[in-house]
């Protein structure tokens, strides 16, 4: 549980950080909250020769409105998200999900950028960002690219990030004022990854689901967007049969690993239940 040797850098600007990443090449890793990378380094499963710490870059922090989008700097911590009135008001599901990430000590350090960029299927934010239709700002020597969250994840720990690129910000379209939302997470204990979790954002019209998107956490190699499940409930009043159809459609795309949290069979089953509960909970919250 002792890391090997590495060089440490603390750039003050994004440009400086990108320059360092380009110069240092494949053996460099950016360091955000460190809650995934540092344990991997202690186990010597990750052995970067260079760590580029992003904590010194003020412009990577903060939450701001840009038209109909909320833009969140990558180094904004989960604690910052929880402390933000803007988030609580405009993106309450982000507030709800942040509260379900680990514990306060982790949330003081853990950043939204690290959470989404690491490609860990156990992280909660990727599914949420896909559900919200968020876009990631990726910055490298070639400039800035904008990649939708739904197209970012390619496999466990494999993402659309190119070598030398840093995720700098996340832009989230502001959901409709009357939207309903829920993040339902089954976990063994505080601090654990989800056994299964589902994010739902929907709007209701005349007692029926008007729009809906559903995301799934830790039920496959990457976070998933359950489009068919969402389609199954649009236009319905979330009667039992529609809910079951949605759960079945969600289950159909799940392929969780078996681990101490449960067998694949169990995780898929409770994944379906999380979808049903998130739908019901979101509908109850919709105005």
């Amino acid at each position, binding site marked *: *549980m*002792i*890391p*090997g*040797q590495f060089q440490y850098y603390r750039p003050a600007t994004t440009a400086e950080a990108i320059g360092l990443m380009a110069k240092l090449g494949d053996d460099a890793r950016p360091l955000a909250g460190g809650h995934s990378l540092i344990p991997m380094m202690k186990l*010597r499963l990750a052995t970067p020769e260079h760590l580029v710490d992003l904590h010194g870059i003020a412009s990577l922090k903060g939450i701001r409105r840009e038209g109909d989008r909320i833009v969140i700097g990558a180094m904004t911590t989960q604690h910052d998200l929880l402390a933000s009135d803007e988030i609580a008001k405009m993106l309450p599901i982000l507030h709800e999900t942040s509260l379900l990430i680990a*514990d306060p000590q982790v949330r003081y350090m853990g950043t939204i950028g690290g959470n989404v960029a690491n490609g860990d299927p156990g992280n909660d934010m990727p599914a949420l960002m896909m559900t919200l239709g968020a876009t990631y700002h990726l910055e490298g020597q070639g400039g800035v690219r904008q990649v939708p969250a739904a197209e970012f994840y390619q496999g466990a720990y494999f993402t659309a990030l190119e070598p030398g690129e840093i995720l700098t910000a996340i832009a989230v379209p502001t959901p409709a004022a009357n939207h309903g939302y829920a993040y339902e997470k*089954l976990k*063994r*204990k*505080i*601090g*654990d990854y989800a*056994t299964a979790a589902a994010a739902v954002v929907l709007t209701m019209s005349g007692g029926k689901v008007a729009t809906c998107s559903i995301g799934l956490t830790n039920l496959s190699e990457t976070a998933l967007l359950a489009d068919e499940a969402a389609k199954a409930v649009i236009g319905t009043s979330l009667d039992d*049969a*529609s809910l*079951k*159809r949605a*759960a*079945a459609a969600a*289950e159909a795309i799940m392929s969780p690993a078996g*681990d*101490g*949290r*449960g*067998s694949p069979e*169990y995780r898929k*089953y*409770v994944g*379906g*239940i999380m979808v049903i509960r998130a739908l019901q909970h979101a509908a109850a919250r919709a105005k």
Partner: protein
Amino acid sequence: MNDMTPTREEREARLEGMGCKRKRVEDVRFTQGKGNYVDDVKLPGMLHGDFVRSPHAHARIKSINTEKALKIPGVLAVLTAETLKTVNLAWMPTLAGDVQMVLADGKVLFQNQEVAFVVATDRYTADDGINAVEVEYEPLPPLVDPFKSMNSDAQILREDIKDKKDGAHGPRKHPNHIFEWTVGDKDLTDAAFKKADVTIKELISYHRVHPSPLETCQCVCSFDKVKGELTIYGTFQAPHVIRTVVALIAKLPEQKIHVISPDIGGGFGNKVGAYPGYICAAVATIVTGKSVKWVEDRMENLTTTSFARDYHMTTEIAATKEGKVTGLRVHVLADHGAFDACADPSKWPAGFFNIVTGSYDFPAAHLTVDGVYTNKAPGGVAYRCSFRVTEAAYCIERGMDILAQKLGMDPAELRLKNFIKPEQFPYHSALGWEYDSGDYATAMKKAMETTQYAALRREQAAKREAFKRGETREIMGIGVSFFTEIVGAGPSKNCDILGIAMFDSCEIRMHPTGTGIARMGSKSQGQGHETTWAQIIATEIGIPADNIMVEEGNTDTAPYGLGTYGSRSTPVAGAAIAMAARKIKAKAQMIAAYKLEVHEDDLEWDIDGFRVKGLPEKFLGMKDICWIAYNSPPPGLEPGLEAVSYYDPPNMTYPFGAYICVMDIEVDTGVYKVRRFYALDDCGTRINPMIIEGQVHGGLTEAFAIAMGQEIHYDNEGNVLGGSFMDFFLPTAVETPHWETDFTVTPSPHHPIGAKGVGESPNVGGVPAFSNAVNDAFSFLGATHIQMPHDFWRNWKAAKQLGLIKDAAFAA
């Protein structure tokens, strides 16, 4: 008497003696981060050692190449079994009469086994060294399932003893067999089963877990070549035993070994044993001439130093149709891992598992335990319990519930029907123990009344009907557990560790100004000894507890004792304190008689001093007596006021308790909620009710963890799973239920202050209460016994096996 004279109540209160909820004095430093733990010990020029460990569960070692590691600047030495052989320490004796590799000698027998010890100038360099040591392994088939260990075609694990027909505890039946231990009357038990109206038989497994104290095992060894003295700072629950063991195996004179246990961050049995880290650090300090520190990390702690439990108990009970038990037959298959390193008193290969008749009057019982080797880490420590008592309590308490279910009786009613009655004490159990005192029915009834047990059962019956009608997907379980512990090891007639009798000790030295110091053979790891020991002295000799300093853990200053584990401190060391204090008091009485000019028999004790009978104004307080004892003792009497007591207990003590757990389980997710947990403990005389409550809270939390999720699990290849706190369930405040505590008081008749010990009762009684609640919840659906741990997933699996989960649940 003027207004300034304190009342009797004020004098009593000022002592903060027994029965007082005195605040823990040690917490002043702990809550300010000012404790002094082993890792705080930093000696000049100190080196750091760390292990190369085996990735394989079973493999032959073809070669170890240390060349590259030794070339790393800062790496000073790499110890292997070959190095240790030069000082005859490649193997070490275990507490259970076996031998254990210190460093892998020819083969490895469990994953993460210690293979080489790298010594470097700092911890980082040591780890770099570890990564540079090249070990070539030839993997062998692993033996993981203990039920296959004695198969004729089973891989022989311990080649060092493969031809040895006899082990430390008698004949061996197979090269992978360690011992067979039998107790009780087989014929009488067989006859009881023949005559029985009703019998039950069930394999009840208690899975492998780990004590996981917050602070891991660690030491700093420092050898002074000039004086030839070895100083060891370590996380030792029993520092004197470590000193003697080091003297015996390292052939050093015992007076030149100084063992110091500073503050310890939890032990729970994990810090009783002797581990390769201690031996390697000691050898390394002798080899290098510099101090060497070894600190285990969390994964090393969970996967190598001393697991607990791993008992597979085939349990049979015979009874009449009215529910009177007539016989108990238990066979245990005990998985000891690669070496028998159980920490039990030496004559007890399965500890005190023969307490398995529990709180019930079994006329006949027979017990057999077979210990076997597997490719798993060695250990088998008493994780917050007296030796194998929690396994025994789980066995009988599950068994009684299974019997109740078969008889169609209420489990509490069945227990009440079979309790040992108060007039039967001292009670001689069918498996050989003499229970000192108990009033079981009173405790059980109090628990039932307080929790409104009958109403809970009515609610449960209604919920079961609602479940059957499909109105709810939640089931309710009520777990009843009534345990009897056996603690306070122990009387020298039947308890020793490697020949060292299991007494304990106290030395009290009063100072002229009316204060004093008490030094003990016990060693607190969080139990609060500095607080409670002073309270016993305060009551015994009338000096305020605040004026007594308690010191433990330094073998140079503390009297020889066997340490703290198995709830033995209060029963044994606590008795030694009272006895030492009474010696002080006896001398004080002689002094008081002389000064008050009366005969000793004309004095009576009055809270904090002696008073002449019938002359209340003639009084001499203990504070004044302390001064007189040093400065103007009676003619012919030695000056000074101090005493030592070594206490060899005449018997064990037998704390007991009644626990009731109410749990709701959602069958579709397996998620449970502990709605209520009530724990009534009878630990005899209560020294500090606040500390008792804290002990009960802690023990219940560990019991909750064990029953509901904690597990050291191995896959078929012998890979250890659950080796980190991600997977090894350590509940946080969020998961931990609310605890309701209660008590009755049945003093021990043979203990000087009537105290029995409480630290481990909640773990012993708690585990069956949780497990019985889960099993009770599912019982109306046809379940007889569901194995622990009862985590969400397993609860769901149980529901699925009972047909409660439809495969096509989501198909519309």
